């Protein structure tokens, strides 16, 4: 049996390992090694209820916190499964050598994270994602050594091989040979991460561009809840990106304020009391936005040694990129796009609307509903990888692969045509216009008029995208990815327009209330160039 896993971040590796352990050969394909994936940037930690957590904590309370954070749109059964497996996942990560922060007795320690009733976020200094990636990558190597996992580097997903509603592998674009090649598989698993790059400057990686989900959408896969985009309230602006200032700073007691008449106003504490700085990310982002002022995060009152021990990466980022010494001065912060609750719609077993096509990690939408709790996405990345792998292991392989020669020839021809161009027009002019559209109309606060304008923009970009010839001296991927990226952006705007209420991370100034009749996930599919939106009233997908 063969599985093709696209994307080698935490979700892709977790899935590949679980498949390989069950005797299934995996091709693990990504343009770069796992060390370059966005997963290495995860800072704060991973949530889990493990026996020995603080008194009163329970799996049930983790479930309730997650569902509450998701404002009624998280898949309840899926969330239950994830939370019940939290302890097992922490133990697994320990067993493959993840270097968790520990106490004197060598036991992993926890910190508090926003929106949680108990301290249940396990962490590795402020480099949790990096430490987990290092451990998973080493474990993958073991399976690579005896041939159960085959890594394909320098290759990108181009399109899925789909026939009669089922997937049989994918076309991969191989950078070295500059060719498309068919990679047949009984099961195709997408682990391609979020769609940060739609927005230009964010906290995430430029490799997370939404192309793969966009292309699958155009090939018939259903997308879900795209309008729910988490803004992280505290990021530090630099010339090229918005750097995350981990929630751990607030977990350690950091206080948000602005200055008025020479006085500090601790606006979160004033409005929400002592735990105000630990409110959920959407609430804080909106409150920061509402101040209309420059906002700062102060941790300088903590003693230097604690800062060195618990927040060394935050300390380093501030000094290196902005010359700010967090032991002495507050950090100027502003909200930025950070996490995508929406993505490929999946069932409880992580299969998408197409048979034998699975999605795991941030590119799938199931656990986080209208908003995600910090620390839950690393947990869901691993858990979802395991669920998909276990499902696949219980299935029969495809009896025969259909013939995709004609499809491949067509796609090759298209690619060749575009590379015959003599133009020097760079595709990123359009990508830049797209990120301006997204930032302007899909910000923290949205309204009908803005969303309409955004859709008009996308319509225009799509109408010119195929007419213009692009610079062929850049990797072909940047050119062929444009249209699906524009499509997923359009589907996101359309989903946000149809949700005429406010819920979780989606806030409409023209519809500020949460309305019961909108208590369903938004599904969007692509038909004849149009975005078809429908609420999932039949609960076709877990939510």
């Amino acid at each position, binding site marked *: 049996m063969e599985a093709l896993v696209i994307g080698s971040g935490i979700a892709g590796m977790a899935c590949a390992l679980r498949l390989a352990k069950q005797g299934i050969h995996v091709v693990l394909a990504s343009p*770069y*090694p796992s*060390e*370059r*994936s*966005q997963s*290495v*940037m995860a800072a704060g930690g991973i949530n889990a209820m493990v026996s020995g957590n603080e008194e009163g904590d329970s799996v049930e309370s983790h479930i309730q916190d997650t569902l509450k954070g998701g404002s009624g749109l998280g898949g309840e059964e899926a969330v239950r499964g994830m939370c019940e497996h939290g302890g097992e996942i922490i133990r697994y990560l*320990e*067993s*493959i*050598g*993840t*270097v968790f922060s*520990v106490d004197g007795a*060598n036991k992993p320690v926890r910190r508090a994270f926003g929106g949680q009733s108990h301290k249940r976020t396990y962490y*590795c*200094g402020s*480099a949790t994602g*990096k*430490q987990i990636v*290092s*451990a998973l990558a*080493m*474990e993958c*190597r*073991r399976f*690579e*050594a005896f041939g159960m996992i085959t*890594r394909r*580097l*320098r290759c990108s997903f181009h399109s899925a091989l789909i026939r009669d509603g089922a997937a049989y592998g994918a076309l991969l674009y191989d*950078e*070295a040979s500059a060719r498309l090649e068919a990679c047949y598989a009984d099961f195709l698993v997408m682990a391609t991460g979020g769609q940060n790059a739609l927005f230009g400057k964010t906290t995430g*990686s*430029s*490799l997370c561009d939404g192309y793969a989900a966009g292309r699958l959408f155009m090939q018939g896969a259903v997308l879900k809840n795209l309008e729910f985009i988490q803004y992280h309230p505290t990021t530090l602006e630099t*010339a*090229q*990106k918005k*750097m995350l200032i981990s929630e751990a700073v607030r977990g350690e007691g950091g206080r948000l304020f602005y200055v008025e008449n020479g006085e500090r106003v601790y606006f979160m504490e004033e409005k929400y009391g002592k735990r105000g700085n630990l409110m959920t990310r959407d609430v804080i982002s909106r409150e920061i936005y509402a101040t209309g002022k420059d906002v700062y995060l102060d941790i300088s009152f903590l003693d230097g040694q604690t800062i060195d021990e618990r927040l060394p990466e935050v300390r380093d*980022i501030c000094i*290196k*990129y902005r010359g700010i010494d967090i032991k002495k001065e507050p950090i100027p912060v502003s909200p930025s796009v950070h996490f995508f609750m929406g993505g490929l719609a999946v069932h409880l077993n992580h299969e998408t609307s197409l048979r034998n096509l699975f999605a795991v990690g941030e590119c799938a939408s199931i656990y986080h509903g209208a908003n995600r709790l910090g620390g839950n996405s690393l947990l869901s990345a691993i858990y979802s990888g395991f669920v998909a792998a276990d499902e696949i292991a219980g299935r029969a392989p495809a009896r025969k692969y259909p013939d995709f020669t004609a499809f491949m020839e067509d796609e090759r021809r298209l690619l060749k045509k575009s590379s015959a161009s003599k133009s*020097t*027009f*760079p595709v*990123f*002019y359009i990508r830049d216009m797209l990120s301006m559209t997204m930032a302007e109309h899909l910000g923290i606060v949205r309204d009908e008029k803005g969303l309409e304008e955004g859709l008009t923009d996308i319509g225009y970009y799509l109408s010119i995208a195929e007419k213009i010839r692009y*610079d062929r*001296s*850049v*990797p072909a991927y940047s050119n062929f990815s444009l249209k699906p990226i524009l499509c997923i952006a359009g589907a996101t705007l359309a989903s946000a327009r149809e949700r005429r209420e406010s819920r979780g991370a989606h806030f409409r100034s023209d519809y500020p209330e949460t309305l019961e009749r909108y208590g369903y996930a938004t599904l969007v599919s692509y038909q004849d160039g149009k975005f078809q939106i429908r609420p999932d009233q039949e609960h076709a997908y877990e939510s």
Partner: protein
Amino acid sequence: MKVNVLRRMTPEQEPYWESFLYDGSEDNTVAGLLDYINYNDDILNDKGEKTTRISWECSCIQGICGACAMIVNDVPALACEAFLKDIQGEEISLRPLSKFPVIRDLVVDRSGIYDSLRHNNVCIETYKPPSDGDHEQDYASAKCLKCGLCIECCPKYTDGRTFYGAPFANDCYLVASRNQEKSHEILEIYQEHFKDSCAFDLACMRICPMGIKITACMKKLNSLK
């Protein structure tokens, strides 16, 4: 500012220098400078001739993924962490890492780092940490980016066939510190592919962007029996 870039379009082509004029912000990093130069309809070199965009690799833009390693004014560095204001003089030269095969312009193939680890089975297998672990060093070693900056400045690393350099020693350390039962096997591999040839000049440690103390790894591995 004049920017000299060592270019080549394909692995087979002979490398050549091409210069560009940079009139962007001083606050930029080298990564920002490359984006700035590439951000034009027509890319012009310093003679006003049309040329192609400069290829380079990036992902995180904050020094934690290792993608953008290159040689900046003869010093191996991460482009997203190399600030123009720290650069002396009016010119800046950018070259690809020289110890790895060049793919295009500033992009190199670092898969050799992974091959050496995979071929020698440098992985934990079972979790059996010794009781006298060094948590701080474990954490530091696991932060290795596999960026290859250390290999670039290593006097002993040539083609990566026998001597594998600091990332290899680093992961050997991690295995020994996570599974004491594998100490003996790891020690043998470490001796053959690292210790026997290492010059102990510590150039690797001085350049490492993660500040990994390779000396601590060596000390631990040398104490194994």
